[in-house]
């Protein structure tokens, strides 16, 4: 039984947070939906004009296409590598060291990571000394140096790799905790029955990791849809690397078009809802 309290007492505890949520979440979210139907200065009603822009303009098409690339390759990469590392580090003696190193990028800012990788991708014309590690490696193997961040579509993949470098550690840590929770008897029993490594993975590890996998996959999907810092710092959406969140930022500040920026936000919101729903349902089940 929880303590029964009447009157205003509970409000003293819950009230401040609710007040903040109303001011910083509920009211602005509703207002943004409203603004998305108004013109650039929020003066006249323009119907679905802003949404037409969101779905048909070439820049937004590029942004959607890139977010889709991110969605596929970033999510598959982070979760796939995270799962692989979670299983493999369990079998080496320097497990905690390995985990620390792979997880470390998670602690630094995306801006910092952006600088780290912009340096890795630095391009100097052929003939001059390379200072970026990746182009140096290309030269060692007899290739020409590449403008990793300048050529589309390779630049979007170059950015996705930065994302992988940052987030794989997160997936690994969550999956590793779940992996260690798999009852040993299950694997032993399978071994007695003559199962091989691959069968154990398919019929025991994967099903047992399902809740944790749902968690990391949904978290990564939401990350991808909101991805901003890496692109803002490394290319600012130029050379065909634009993404939804960066475009919204540009519409808001560079072009001062409130209507379009709001419509982009609403579309982003609509895409996030089903994923977050799955994510929260999973969290509530676990908690």
């Amino acid at each position: 039984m929880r303590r029964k309290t009447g009157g205003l007492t509970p409000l003293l505890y819950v009230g401040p947070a609710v007040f903040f949520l109303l001011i910083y979440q509920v009211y602005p979210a509703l207002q943004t939906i409203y603004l998305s139907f108004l013109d650039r200065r929020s003066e006249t009603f323009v119907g679905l004009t802003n949404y037409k822009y969101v779905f048909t303009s070439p820049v937004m098409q590029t942004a959607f296409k890139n977010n889709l690339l991110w969605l596929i390759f970033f999510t598959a990469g982070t979760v796939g590598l995270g799962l692989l590392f979670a299983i493999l580090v369990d079998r080496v003696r320097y497990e905690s060291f390995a985990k620390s190193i792979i997880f470390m990028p998670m602690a630094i800012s995306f801006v910092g990571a952006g600088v780290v990788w912009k340096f890795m991708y630095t391009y100097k014309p052929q003939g001059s000394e390379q200072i970026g590690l990746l182009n140096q490696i290309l030269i060692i193997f007899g290739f020409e140096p590449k403008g990793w961040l300048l050529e589309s579509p390779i630049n979007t993949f170059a950015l996705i790799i930065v994302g992988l470098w940052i987030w794989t550690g997160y997936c690994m840590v969550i999956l590793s905790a779940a992996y260690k929770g798999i009852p040993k008897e299950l694997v032993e029993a399978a071994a007695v029955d003559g199962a091989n490594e691959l069968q154990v993975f398919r019929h025991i590890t994967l099903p047992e990791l399902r809740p944790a996998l749902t968690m990391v996959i949904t978290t990564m999907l939401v990350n991808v849809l909101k991805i901003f810092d890496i692109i803002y710092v490394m290319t600012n959406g130029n050379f065909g690397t634009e993404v939804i969140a960066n475009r919204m930022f540009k519409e808001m500040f560079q072009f001062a078009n409130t209507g379009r920026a709001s419509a982009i936000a609403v579309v982003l919101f609509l895409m996030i809802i089903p994923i977050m729903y799955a994510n929260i349902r999973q969290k509530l089940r676990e908690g």
Partner: protein
Amino acid sequence: MNRQKLKKKLPQIVVNVVVILAIVLWFLPTLGLLITSFRPASDVAYSGWWTALSSPLKFTQYTIENYQSVLSSGGMLTAFRNSFIISIGGTVIPVFLAALSAFGLSKLNFKGRGFFYALIVMMLVVPSQMTFIPVLRLYNKLSLSGTFGGLWLVHTGYGLPFSIFMLHTFFQSLPDELFEAAHIDGASIWTTFLRLAIPLSVPALASLVIFQFLAVWNDLLVALIYLGGHQSVAPLTMRLSSLVGSHGQDWHLLTAAAFVSMAVPLIVFLSLQKYFVRGLMGGAVKG
């Protein structure tokens, strides 16, 4: 795990090779940044950082000049101070309010409790993009944009849903009998909160504090939106990203600046890794 009995087990050598390769891949980019930040400008521009590795202990090839110049003329020192001010306020306020309301929601019985909790969980779905324009307009009216106070409150608003969710999960796990006993002994609700709930939840609070602190410290987008172009209040992430714009090829400066921005998170991470990981999981995994 008893894997000896598994048929066709993945050879240990393969496991080691993959894990060591991952460690090297994850560590190299940061190592390159660190070494470059200590090399003289002329070396950085004309030779790769790996050339320093041929005689890594030749200390005459290193210099701290880059750090001196980013800290003095680069404005990184002011930005460092700003990051601290922003992160401390942006952590203390939301964590305190979250503790209050999570306590109220899980240990007090009152009408509308379920509704408030549902509201908070729903707010987890709303991306911050949905709130930028209306909140910024409100801030411009109240002259809160470009101020530390305004940014603290924004980080509070954005951080609360997750913080409450996480602490609520934790408070739920504390036995109600404990709180009943305190009630019977005549303790007021406030005393129960301060003397019982808070001390019992130190591990959870520590995780949350570290998580929120690093999230605010590493934030770029929220600062960009609400601080405008005010460099005097800009945190490290903003300062670093504007250096990328203005000194894009001065890698000796950029690497030093990046490392300044990464120093605090790295120290926090390396010393408090356990709590940080737990904070990131935030109810994803029990315990």
